[in-house]
């Protein structure tokens, strides 16, 4: 068990390191001067030079990278924004909870609905119910998130007037208001993920349901409900869990679009704002933190399922 967790952690550390290099390189691949880009052409060379020294931009790239990483690890310090003189680490600590408070509920919602739809379509294979849900799932897979959100706003916000069309309230401030405002963003975020999980669950359930031990369970007179949920689903879920871990990025990435449309002050909005302002240090930090969330959730899913199912552990040996 410990062995499995250690190995998983080591791999995660390697990935985190590579991701930090990626995030750093993304913003440094182009020649051009980040200070000039941020401040515009109107400033004098002297001011630019001062900024270059202040932000370590005069040093070689490797040194810059090491300084950046050192700041994050030792002090949780992501540096200062060039444009607004804000502390980037502070910004991250402000915005991250907002994004997570939407991602986790939509993750839970997607898993519940996705598995449920997957089981229903597998058990009722070939009926109109199966065809209907499968058809909706394939449409869900091909529908852009921004369109789902806009359609939802039009239908529930503008026509039926039952849900707010934008805004956010922190759950610690007012939980009821949080639920009321978060319900549409969370549902929109979940649409694609539900479809992915439902399809995966369906195909795995179909494979498992034809196996001998299921026939044995039925022959022993177990009620159908217990056969499906207790015996079949448990085994069908292993590949599903893997997919959930890998595809977590759908939800985390989707929050960039959802936060923009619903005007939610999370990391996604910050990323969009910083891209428009060309505030490269914030963009770099956002990419890194967003990926950290993905990697972290992935690790959580893997380890918790490794604890439940010994086969997962064995595959890591």
């Amino acid at each position, binding site marked *: 068990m410990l062995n499995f967790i250690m190995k998983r952690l080591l791999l995660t550390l*390697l*990935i985190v390191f*590579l*991701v930090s*290099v*990626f*995030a750093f390189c*993304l*913003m440094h*691949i*182009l020649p051009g001067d980040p200070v000039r880009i941020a401040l515009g052409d109107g400033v004098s060379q002297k001011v630019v030079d001062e900024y270059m020294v202040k932000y370590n931009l005069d040093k070689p790239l490797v040194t810059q990278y090491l300084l950046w990483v050192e700041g994050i690890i030792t002090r949780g310090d992501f540096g200062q924004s060039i444009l607004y003189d804000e502390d980037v680490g502070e910004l991250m600590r402000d915005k991250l909870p907002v994004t997570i408070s939407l991602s986790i509920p939509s993750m839970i919602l997607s898993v519940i609905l996705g598995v449920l739809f997957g089981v229903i379509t597998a058990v009722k294979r070939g009926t109109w119910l199966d065809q209907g849900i499968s*058809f909706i799932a*394939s*449409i869900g*897979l*091909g*529908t*852009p*998130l*921004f*369109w789902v959100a*806009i*359609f939802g*706003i*039009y239908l529930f916000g*503008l026509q039926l007037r039952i849900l707010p069309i934008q805004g956010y309230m922190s759950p610690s401030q007012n939980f009821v208001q949080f639920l009321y405002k978060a319900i549409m963003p969370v549902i929109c975020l979940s649409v694609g993920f539900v479809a992915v999980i439902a399809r*995966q669950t369906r*195909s*795995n359930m179909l*494979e498992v349901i034809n196996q001998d031990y299921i026939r044995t369970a039925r022959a022993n007179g177990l009620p159908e409900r217990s056969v499906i949920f207790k015996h079949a689903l448990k085994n069908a879920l292993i590949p599903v869990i893997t997919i959930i871990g*890998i595809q977590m*990025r*759908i939800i*985390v*990435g*989707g929050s*960039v*679009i959802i936060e*923009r*449309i619903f005007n939610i002050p999370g990391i996604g909005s910050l*990323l*969009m704002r910083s*891209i*428009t302002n060309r505030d490269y240090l914030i*963009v770099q930090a*956002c*990419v890194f933190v*967003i*990926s950290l969330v*993905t*990697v972290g959730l*992935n690790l959580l899913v893997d380890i918790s399922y490794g604890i439940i199912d010994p086969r997962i552990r064995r595959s890591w040996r």
Partner: protein
Amino acid sequence: MEDKDLKLLNIENVQKDNKKKRFRQTVSVFFGRGLIAKICFSIIVVFIVLAIIAPLIAPYDPNIQSLQETKRKPSSEHLLGTDHLGRDVLSRIIYGTRVSLYASVLAGLFAASIGIFLGLLAGYYGKIASLVIMRLTDAQLSIPGIVFTLVLASVMGGGLKSIVIAIGIGMIPTYIRMMNGLVLSLKENDFVTAARLIGQTNSLILFKHLLPNCFPSLIVLFTINLGAGIMLEAALSFLGVGINPPTATWGGMVSDGYALLIANPLLSILPGICIILLVVSFNIVGDGLRDALDPRLRGKL
């Protein structure tokens, strides 16, 4: 001598016949999947034709503004109405097809050419090559695709070229993973050992023996990625880092229409429906192709 030539010719003919038979079989399996696969295939054909002959059938120039006729409802003059600058929505949707298909096909080709090569290397040579390539792939996959392409495209300055490259780079991992897996299982086959025994070079084995065996799966992946590319391009254009206005793009039209959601919801709903139609069609055709070309992959993609 003549006899030998004749025999050779015959073998070639038999091979040709086999190929024809296999092609016919593939087509029949694909179209035998029912009405939906046929409909989706036709939808794709219609959109491709629309993209090609856009200038001939679009009733207006998509970029000509007429400020006296802004925000018109659908009428006989403008079948789908006009947008906030008085541009004809129908013409813009037709021209938007071009950008979507063009960007996504180019990005797919870009990703395929790099991804196939790296995947072959990782799968065939294993060890360090595989370690480096696969871990880098894992790292890239932990950055959400939309964030990765968004940042890359904006760093490269937006516009068609940077979008194609950004989406292309974002898709490379899918090809690497698939090629790596395929080559790992294929290289244990006898024909590879045989090729090595008669002294063929690694590059010959890679490109002449292993690569052709991966084509069926690659075609499936390419088709499904076309849909994914269209979605990404639309998302980037929606967020405003995509193709620069005034070029008509579906994502950009949804974004423009969002501001006029109360006045004329069609402006943002309709281009979205085009995206859904095309992407869902690519996905379903991809599923059909997979069943026809490579049944082993069922449920894996």
